[in-house]
């Protein structure tokens, strides 16, 4: 947010404050926006970890560590925005670790389950 205050004054074209931006192999001297600097680096999603997509309360857990689960099985009920969301699994797996307990309030992007993928 500081950018605006700075920009209110005339921008001094100051060589040392510029950064390099690589476009098609060419490095351009320029300034970067705060939005650009805040952007998230892309990471390959890890299919064995399940994170919460919304903050809420764990109302019910249907599984235990070590359980073998099949595609379509219910894992838990997450209450968020006054709605009870059924969380189920789209593939077969073994549950390696459960990081939550019933009644727990969890934030967004909280690690809920860790799986071990199974053959069938």
């Amino acid at each position: 947010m500081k950018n605006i205050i700075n920009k209110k004054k005339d921008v001094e074209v100051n060589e040392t404050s510029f950064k390099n931006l690589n476009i098609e192999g060419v490095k351009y001297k320029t300034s970067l926006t705060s939005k650009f600097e805040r952007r998230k680096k892309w990471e390959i999603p890890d299919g064995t970890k399940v994170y919460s997509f919304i903050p809420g309360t764990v109302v019910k857990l249907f599984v235990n560590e070590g359980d073998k689960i099949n595609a379509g099985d219910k894992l838990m009920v997450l209450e968020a925005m006054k709605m009870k969301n059924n969380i189920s699994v789209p593939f077969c797996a073994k549950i390696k670790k459960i990081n939550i307990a019933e009644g727990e309030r969890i934030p967004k992007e909280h690690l809920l389950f860790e799986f071990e993928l199974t053959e069938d």
Partner: protein
Amino acid sequence: MSLKRKVLELKKRRDQVLLGGGEKAIEKQVAMGKLTARERILALLDKESFHEYDMFVEHEARDFDMDKKILHGDGVIIGTGTVYGAPICIFAQDFTVAGGSLGLMHARKITKIMDHAMKLRVPLIGINDSGGARIQEGVNSLAGYGEIFFRNTAASGVIPQISVILGPCAGGAVYSPALTDFVFMVDNISKMFITGPEVIKTVLGEEISMEDLGGARVHSEITGNAHFFATSELECFDQIKKLITFIPWNNSKKALAFAPKKPKSKYKIESIVPGDPKLPYDIRDVIRAVVDDSDFFEVQEYWAANIVIGFGRINGETVGFVANQPLVLAGVLDVDSSDKAARFVRYCDAFDIPLVTFVDLPGYLPGVDQEHAGVIRHGAKLLYAYSEATVPKTTVIIRKAYGGGYIAMCSRHLRADFVFAWPGAEIAVMGPEGAANIIFRKEIMEAEDPEKMRKQKIKEYKDKFANPYVAAAKGYVDAVIDPEETRKLLVHAIQVSKDKTVYTPNKKHGIPPF
């Protein structure tokens, strides 16, 4: 009762309404650092030009003991006036009356003045300062918003619509400003959001202040909802007045012409732009070097600053400028900058404002975040807007015009009327470095000294293609010009394009990618 006594009675009634929500509520408004609705109207419009209507309107709500409450003017002031002599319809929500909440009669007053603005074909200014829907009036209040949104859309492109956010504007209410042409916000006073901090805390557990959620800075820099940022209400009013001087009253009129003025001598066009295309400079100085009195009025200055949009005058007439900004992100096109420029192009086209485009860009911003944010869909908006626009379009290629960026920035192919290029312009499918690496990959790889070969091939490519003459040989560029001639040619291009006519096939409307 004599007429004189009746006039006294009228005065008494008026004085009551003029107090709005009463002295205590006014004190509160002042304590928040805000002007009252009436003070705002008076500060914005020409002296003694404001005339108020529907002063004695009363609400009709009967439930929840509302029948015992008197809400002067039902929390909104409407009227007509002038700004620098230009006729204006205006409404201002009065926060001192029931928090400026919107009930049925409040909405009817707003829609009445909107209908007036459409009939009279004059600009509409709306000052928003409201707690939102008046809950006691239930669905009537929602109906009120809907009627306003419908009129905003119907008036879009017919009369200029200006929204001024001077207080809260939350929930559904935000969509009226969002449908209008220009949104003005003031630091620490304006707040816009769909769901407020309290709801976000309850359902999501995230804590955030109103200012950080939807203050003027957020909407000016991050969301792009706001077009103008001011640090005080008075500065905001000056910005509105200045904007009014640049735009026409409606879509069948031209913007008022001013006496032509020369640009200020301190903006010397040749000394602004470095020869090396990798070095930055402020494109706004180039615009200042060609517009009358070097007066460039920038729109959305802080959002997507890698593209610059705004108004200036050439030989006294309003022109809309779109220009890549090498100072920020090397002037690339990306999701936000395409969106920003496309909407501005459509604005200028709707209101018959000629467009001038300055081109200096290395291409599109690479990155997963850009691709996943839909740079294809958003980038297409700019192509659509330029292709569709039938106002006079003049393009000046300053340095780099590579690849898809060259096409998108109002090229000949999107029907620019005139394309000029400075002698240092590089119009090519990509920058020499990238192109040489692809075309001469084999030679470079097989060379004894690949680095030396790469440099040699880059130079070869540069000498052959990194200039404006290849495009000029095909007629894609109309003239290669001395930078000093830029203003002269812009004056001429706009002068000869006055009666430009384009025949387009009959259609209900196109389907732009939004």
